[in-house]
């Protein structure tokens, strides 16, 4: 077992990396390595979108890339495909340098963009055929794979219809069909469930699991922890262009298992109270937003009376109080003081 320490400001996250993963990293021939990203830097003006970001992905994994809006997830995916230039660092996909072999690499990669990427003036089958041909498919092979993709996404029966007649969920499925027609080894899903109803969302998540079982390695970006928990074998959390956590779900959970979250709604905001509460024994952090105090406290420490006393002394009237054990969703809060959807 190997431990990896990731520094994030004043906090440190220690993760246990399982032995299988360690063995893969050590594979010098890189056979099992799908993606190797080393310390990439990408800047948009003065904004650092990717700040010495490093990441590795192995064959068969579903990697959840988690982070709030503007964390640098999409920039990372663009850099991974060579669609955006990087200032420094190195990116290898399938063991090949993306800068030198972009076109060759792209043949084996499928991208499901966050926004719909289908032509409304082409029928479902024409959309899939068009992208299939551009991925280099032709003849019988093209026909078979187009049919399989449409069947996989339950759209074959409606293949001759135009997407403008489709529901939002069906359009999302067509979006996926266009990305997987060429049976890619690596599929990048960039927040594919944004604005999707729960039924279609479940369908998409199931499809991703099936694709993974059929041999595709997957990178799935989201800012919904519950989605990532459901399908991903490993989670990487990005904030401000940096990796702030990297590990399996159980590894990340172990980091926050001794924490509890206390939410107290008060009648008026008093910023002195935040500093006072932070000094109470067992309290790890305290934030206030919209008249709700969020306190991260060590689990099992009996400090709630002291917290309430402090609030009384500051003449804060308590409207509501809620205590719960920390979930994986709260990990981001623990690390950054913000929630994923702030």
């Amino acid at each position, binding site marked *: 077992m190997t431990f990896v320490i990731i520094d994030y400001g004043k906090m440190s996250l220690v993760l246990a990396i399982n032995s299988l993963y360690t063995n893969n990293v050590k594979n010098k021939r890189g056979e099992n390595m799908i993606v190797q990203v080393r310390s990439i830097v990408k800047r948009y003006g003065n904004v650092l979108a990717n700040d010495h970001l490093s990441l590795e992905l192995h064959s068969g994994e579903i990697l959840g890339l988690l982070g709030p809006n503007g964390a640098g997830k999409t920039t990372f995916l*663009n850099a991974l495909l060579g669609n*955006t230039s990087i200032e420094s660092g190195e990116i290898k996909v399938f063991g090949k340098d993306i800068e030198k072999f972009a076109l060759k690499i*792209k043949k084996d990669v499928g991208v499901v963009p966050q926004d719909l*990427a289908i032509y409304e003036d*082409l029928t479902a089958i*024409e959309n899939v055929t068009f*992208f299939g041909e551009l991925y280099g498919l*032709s003849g019988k092979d093209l026909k078979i794979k187009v049919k399989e993709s449409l069947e996989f996404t339950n759209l074959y029966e409606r293949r001759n219809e135009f997407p403008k007649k489709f529901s939002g969920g069906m359009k999302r499925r067509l979006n996926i069909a266009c990305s997987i027609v060429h049976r890619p080894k690596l599929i990048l899903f*960039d927040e594919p469930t944004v604005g999707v109803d729960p039924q279609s969302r479940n369908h998409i998540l199931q499809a991703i699991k099936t694709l993974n079982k059929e041999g595709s390695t997957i990178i799935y970006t989201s800012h919904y922890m519950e989605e990532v928990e459901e399908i991903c074998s490993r989670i990487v959390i990005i904030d401000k262009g940096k990796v702030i956590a990297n590990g399996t779900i159980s590894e990340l959970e172990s980091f926050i298992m001794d924490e509890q979250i206390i939410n107290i709604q008060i009648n008026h905001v008093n910023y002195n109270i935040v500093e006072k509460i932070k000094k109470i024994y067992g309290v790890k952090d305290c934030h206030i937003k919209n008249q709700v105090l969020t306190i991260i406290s060590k689990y099992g420490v009996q400090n709630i009376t002291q917290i309430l006393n402090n609030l009384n002394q500051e003449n804060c009237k308590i409207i509501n109080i809620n205590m719960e054990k920390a979930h994986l969703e709260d990990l981001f809060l623990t690390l950054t003081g913000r929630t994923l959807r702030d």
Partner: protein
Amino acid sequence: MKKIKVIAYYELLKNIRDIKMLLILILSPIILIFILGNSLDSFLTASYVEPPLVGYVNLDKGNMSHTFNVFLQQDEISELIEIRNFSTKEEATNAIEEGIISSMIFIDDNYSSQLQDEEETEIEILGKENRTYVAAIVNNYVNTYNLNASIIENDFIPIEDGERYTIERGLINSKESYPKSIDYYAVQTLLQFLLLCSIFGVSIVMRDYQKGLSVRIKSLPVHKHEFIIGRLIGSIMYSFIAAIIIIIFSKYVYNANWNGNPLLIYFTILLFVVISNGLGVLLGSFTNNYTSSFGILALLAVVLPASVGAFSPKTLVKPISFIAPNRYALNIIFGTIYDYPKRLIMNGFIGLFIMLIIVYAMIIFFEGRRKYENI
């Protein structure tokens, strides 16, 4: 090459299915040609009951009035007015007084000499009845004459004493044909709308309005130049097909005159749409912004055709006509229909080829420097 063919095919398919674009590019010029080309004729038809008897006095001994005689002898005109010749103005005036004729057309004896001296001259219309009606017919002739003169002036043929006469005779008399309003506006309006095909070119190099599509396209194993060339070919094909439809419609429905060398006409149209689509690509590459590109295009689509008389033969923006591809295409198309001197047709081709080379050389320069991530 296979990918370029695929992209071109689907680009064409998408454009054909775009109803809004179909309306703008095909239906609008068809309607506009009808309105511009028939506004005068419809006035004539509306007033027509039976051909009124109109007196005609031509005191001019020169050759210039001969074209007007030819005009009056046309079958179409004799269906509208019945001409009775008189030798003097007094004779005709008496006939009006006696109610034999309703009105008269009078040409003075210095008509040809004034025209040859590049002075204004008049065709006078007198009478009690049908004056406006007769004036409309005469105006049709005068406008046509001025249009032809304007076209020739646009080609910078040195106009010296007498030369205007030679050209005028060459244009109108050799075939004894002249462009009617519908003929003239069929060509002008077609070229004006084909210039609008630059819109396709702009969208080719601009970030797709559907953000997701831009991401997907850049993620495909396709070179940037393959994508641009493929889409460009698709758009050019669509513009060309649209042009053929407009030509066929205006020829068989509006009876517009397209009776020149068809190969020459269609080749010119193809060259023109290659240039107009390329112009859009260039504009898109240069501005990298939809709003700016469309703004500039809207301006060009009015100013450039206006400079070659698409709205009126008399135009203030004539000096900039040398940068209008319309000018060169008009030379060739009118040239083959109305037997312009070969030199003019050749000038048209040289002009179009020079524009083609300049536009595409600039595209290669700007697109070569542009990063794929900005598309």
